[in-house]
């Protein structure tokens, strides 16, 4: 089993009388990318701030790279990179100077690393420009560069695709996957669930300050049944044929379409049955569960009222 890079145990946090996080536990192992998702105000950013030592938890512990945050803060945080919320910079300084400031806090990191990370995120040509002149997408890329300067083993990215154009999103996704291959672990929060689905291999969903589900993406998105959309002009015939079939559990009829919930790996049987009954079918479309569907199912969508990311 891979070594845990991050271990968060039983974190509780209240701001005044408002309980923001309740008994939150999760872990990230080496090379894993955890998608940490939840409605607005669920407590995502607060948890990241606790893990980074910016906010103190009322209870619980955080261990990073084997070092407890309380007691061995410098060792724990030494190999962590982060972009929390919208990346913040000294707008009157150049991108290079902003990265140099991070570099200055890690004496073991050589200055050449700055040029390397700027190249990696495609900002070499604009390195000398003041960050105040950057677009949000460029700031996001610069934030990622800053997170990479310290040679991290774990990177926190809070809404990393926010403000990026489609090309930027593709490039960032590819970069994250490339870094993941090098063994860097990621802790990513995003409202773009399709991006999380493409980049992360594990997810944890938080609602009103509590983790309501966590596990591998594959495990959570795999169901005991499959959903298949049958596009046909003879919806009535299809419905009547499928009503008495053992592997079909549920049927919904729409205009020129029947949606059937069937046993896993039964789509071939369904196809065969429709052919045998000589029912004209235009398309058979398997309908996989997406992270978005799972998220809506588990959280009901919307915003949380009793958790809070904004104080």
């Amino acid at each position: 089993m891979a070594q845990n890079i991050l271990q968060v145990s039983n974190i509780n946090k209240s701001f005044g009388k408002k309980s923001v996080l309740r008994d939150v536990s999760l872990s990230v192992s080496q090379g894993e990318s955890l998608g940490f998702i939840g409605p607005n105000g669920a407590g995502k950013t607060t948890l990241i701030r606790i893990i980074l030592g910016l906010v103190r938890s009322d209870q619980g512990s955080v261990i990073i790279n084997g070092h407890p945050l309380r007691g061995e803060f410098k060792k724990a945080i030494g190999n962590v990179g982060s972009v929390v919320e919208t990346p913040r910079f000294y707008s009157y300084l150049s991108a290079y100077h902003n990265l140099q400031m991070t570099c200055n806090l890690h004496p073991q990191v050589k200055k050449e690393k700055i040029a390397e990370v700027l190249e990696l995120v495609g900002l070499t040509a604009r390195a000398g420009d003041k960050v105040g002149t950057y677009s949000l997408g460029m700031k996001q890329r610069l934030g990622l560069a800053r997170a990479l300067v310290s040679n991290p083993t774990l990177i926190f990215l809070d809404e990393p695709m926010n403000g990026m154009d489609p090309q930027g999103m593709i490039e960032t996704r590819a970069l994250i996957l490339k870094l993941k291959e090098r063994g860097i672990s990621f802790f990513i929060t995003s409202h773009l669930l399709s991006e999380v689905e493409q980049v992360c291999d594990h997810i944890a969903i938080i609602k009103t300050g509590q983790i309501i589900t966590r596990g591998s993406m594959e495990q959570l998105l795999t169901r005991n049944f499959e959903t298949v959309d049958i596009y046909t002009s003879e919806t009535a015939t299809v419905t009547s044929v499928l009503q008495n079939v053992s592997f079909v559990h549920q049927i919904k009829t729409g205009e020129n379409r029947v949606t059937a919930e069937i046993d896993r790996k039964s789509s071939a049987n369904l196809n065969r049955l429709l052919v045998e009954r000589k029912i004209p079918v235009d398309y058979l479309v398997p309908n996989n569960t997406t992270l978005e569907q799972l998220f809506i199912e588990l959280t009901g969508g919307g915003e949380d009222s009793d958790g809070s990311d904004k104080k």
Partner: protein
Amino acid sequence: MTGLIKNELLKLTHNRKTYGFMLALLMINVIPVLLTLLIGIRTMDGQSYPSTLYGVTVSWVLPLFLIAIIAEMITEEYSAGTLSLSLVHPVTRVQLITAKVIALLMLILAGLLYALLLGYGIGTLFFGWGSGFFMRGISYTTWEGIRITLVSYFASAVPLLSFSLLVMFLALIMSSGASVVGASAGLLLIFTILDLLAKEISPFLISSYFVVTHLVLSFNRQEISFALAFLLLHSLLFYLAAIVVLQKRDIVN
């Protein structure tokens, strides 16, 4: 720690306020020259010029500049979310505060040096070097004059740093840069008025130590010891208070 100090200095050297301060000081140096040229009576010379402007420089120009810089360094950085940038790296909050204090001391020393050189430069340029150093009706040799001027300027770094620590504490407990500037400038004004009106409480007002010429001239050991003890306690109190406030604070921006 060295890295944190480098960062603070990098920010200060790229900050517009630093250049605004330099410009303001230049103008303050030029105004007496213009007035002299207008009136046509030459009463100053190059070697006395820095000490003529010493009072206004260390009592008002530098303190006000420091208030503006500290408000930005702490309160505005907190609200802009940049204060947290250093804290997510292997540095402690005590180190962050200490680095800011050291950077402020360096800034004060650089500011005093700049004011001193500007005074000598502009004074000599417009009035000539002069034959001797005059202060409070007493004539000193050139070398004595330079020593008095240098010691006075650089000794002011101690009370100015102590005042900076008070402002730093205010910056940590207040939520907006404007409030910090208003409160600190208000305090500075109140201290100055109290210093003028109630001499008996002067030894307990930080602003009464900004100008140290009388201590340099008299070299009264008792007075100097009291001043140093007061400044040390004042500095220690607000340095520790600033650390306690930052240690307890949740950084949510």
